[in-house]
């Protein structure tokens, strides 16, 4: 029998606020242990949580960017469970009234992955097991999270990858999170079940916890789907369980089964009040949303005429889009701009992180100026590439590299003179051409390019040379 994969995601995203969700401690990553701490985030007796406004605003932004309905009356709940990384023995989260509900994330194909809900909650601390000790650091305790829960709409590991990448992009575009999976600021729990192809019923699912890389997600899903298919094919039953993916072996392992399922004893957090969000504020946040990734992608391909492949390479980095959009706004042609970015600039940015940061020495203003010269035929693309390369290396303005004379171009007379020189200096190439080896003309172009440092109009030079050689005949 053929099986169909059914998968839903629970994604935790750390919000990029300056302070924690319930206290004024910094959220900065990488500090010495227990130095971003206070009575509130270490669960001292008598300390009380005070909700951070920006957390709510960021979560609303995330909700609106994923087409959710915003609950303008919302409250927080306690999720009770005892674990050493959770200093109060409860996590303040949201249970029956999440801030955002009923949204979706659209894939490039147009398929929509529905979102059940997005709620706000606090992160836990970090445990380190070492030398017979358990060490606990609460710096991360109380860092704000949103949990994005999807419907089981994902039907392949490839779709899962796109879904996660889209979420990542959306959150980065709207500036609520850097979504760095390797630093843990984005983590996924993946639910997986199989059902006979065409069936409507959902099978028993397993959940792979805490995935922190897109490629591991793909691998884990493929492995788990295979494992389940094997069991089902041999007439077995899937046991509902929470799994862990071992990155070294590429296999999943059972952490706990349904029998030891937790009873979280949710109840409304009595230390916090119900939050009332004015509709006007929701509209304000909605109208301030930037262009979202898929909108941008479609504008690049449909309006600006950039190829799908190139548009993909651009829109996956927010900073690149900002740079590109600014250049276009300043009058630079989209095609020449994208070609220069993807060719010349990307060749200096080797890693994803570097492209993400897009920290280059050329301003959009200079870039636009350069591209406008190319667009207007004042310089050719080769010179533009060379100039851009130099600027990327040592900085400076376009005018530092390209003189008035360069822009003035080479006069018809000068070019003709150069062409004569080229023919004279390469008698062999000229002869070959005349004897019908038309490709030999390339050798003559090389001479002209070298002599003009690439700024001569080669098309024009070709016309002249053909004329010259023809006349000699």
């Amino acid at each position, binding site marked *: 029998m053929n099986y169909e994969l059914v998968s839903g995601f629970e994604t935790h995203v750390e919000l990029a*606020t*300056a*302070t924690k969700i319930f*206290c*004024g*401690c*910094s959220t900065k990553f990488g500090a*010495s*242990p*227990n*130095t*971003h*701490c*206070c*009575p509130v985030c*270490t669960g001292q007796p008598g300390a009380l949580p*005070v*909700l*951070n*406004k*920006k*957390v*709510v*605003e960021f979560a609303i932004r995330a909700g609106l960017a994923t087409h959710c309905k915003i609950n303008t*009356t919302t*409250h927080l709940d306690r999720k009770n469970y*005892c674990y*050493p990384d959770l200093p109060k023995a409860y996590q303040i989260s949201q249970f029956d009234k999440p801030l955002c509900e009923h949204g979706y994330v659209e894939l490039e194909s147009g398929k929509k992955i529905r979102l059940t809900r997005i709620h706000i909650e606090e992160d836990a601390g970090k445990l*380190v097991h070492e030398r*017979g*000790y*358990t*060490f*606990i*650091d*609460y710096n991360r305790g109380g860092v704000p999270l949103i949990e994005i829960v999807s419907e089981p709409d994902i039907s392949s590991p490839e779709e899962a990858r796109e879904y996660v990448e889209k979420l990542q992009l959306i959150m980065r575009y709207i500036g609520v999170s850097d979504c760095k999976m390797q630093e843990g600021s984005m983590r996924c729990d993946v639910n997986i079940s199989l059902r006979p192809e065409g069936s409507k019923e959902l099978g028993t699912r397993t959940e792979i916890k805490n995935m922190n890389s897109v490629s591991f997600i793909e691998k884990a899903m493929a492995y788990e789907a295979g494992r389940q298919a094997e069991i089902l094919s041999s007439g077995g039953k899937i046991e509902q369980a929470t799994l862990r993916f071992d990155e070294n072996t590429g296999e999943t392992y059972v952490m706990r089964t349904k029998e030891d399922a937790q*009873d979280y*004893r949710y109840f*409304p957090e009595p230390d916090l*009040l*119900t*939050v*009332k*969000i*004015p509709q006007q*504020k929701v509209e304000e946040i909605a109208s301030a949303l930037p262009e979202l990734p898929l909108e941008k992608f479609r504008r690049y391909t449909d309006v600006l005429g950039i190829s799908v492949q190139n548009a993909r390479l651009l829109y996956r980095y927010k900073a690149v889009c900002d740079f590109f959009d600014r250049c276009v706004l300043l009058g630079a042609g989209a095609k020449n701009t994208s070609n220069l970015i993807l060719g010349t600039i990307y060749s200096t940015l080797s890693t994803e992180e570097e492209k993400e940061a897009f920290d280059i020495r050329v301003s959009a203003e200079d870039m636009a100026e350069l591209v406008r010269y190319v667009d207007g035929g004042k310089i050719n693309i080769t010179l533009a590439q060379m100039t851009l390369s130099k600027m990327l290396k040592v900085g400076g303005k376009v005018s530092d590299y390209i003189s008035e004379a360069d822009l003035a171009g080479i006069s018809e007379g000068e070019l003709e003179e150069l062409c004569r020189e080229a023919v004279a200096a390469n008698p062999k190439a000229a002869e070959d051409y005349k004897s019908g080896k038309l490709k030999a003309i390339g050798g003559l172009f090389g001479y002209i390019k070298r002599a003009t440092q690439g700024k001569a109009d080669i098309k024009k030079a070709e016309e002249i040379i053909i004329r010259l050689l023809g006349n000699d005949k």
Partner: protein
Amino acid sequence: MAESQREQKISKEQFRALARLSRLSFSEEEEEQFIAGFEEMITFCDGINSEIEGDASSIREVDAREIALGDLRADEVVPSLPNEKILSNVHGERGYFAVKRVVK
């Protein structure tokens, strides 16, 4: 009251599950005694089911007190406390809270 007449409100298994959730443990002996007292408390709490005269339809949720979004805390960093303070009620190790795993 004879033991058999006493209404069994909670089984031993249930009691142990609650103890696990509460992170408490009871010896067999304590368990017996505790369950009896515990059942008495549950019976006491079952008092919420006594009938109240008057309009039962007036039963409603407590009006939750509200706070406007604008009145929530501004996202401004307040200096954290020094690590020595954070660890002042416990024996810390290299800035961490630490629990030694004792193997019996």
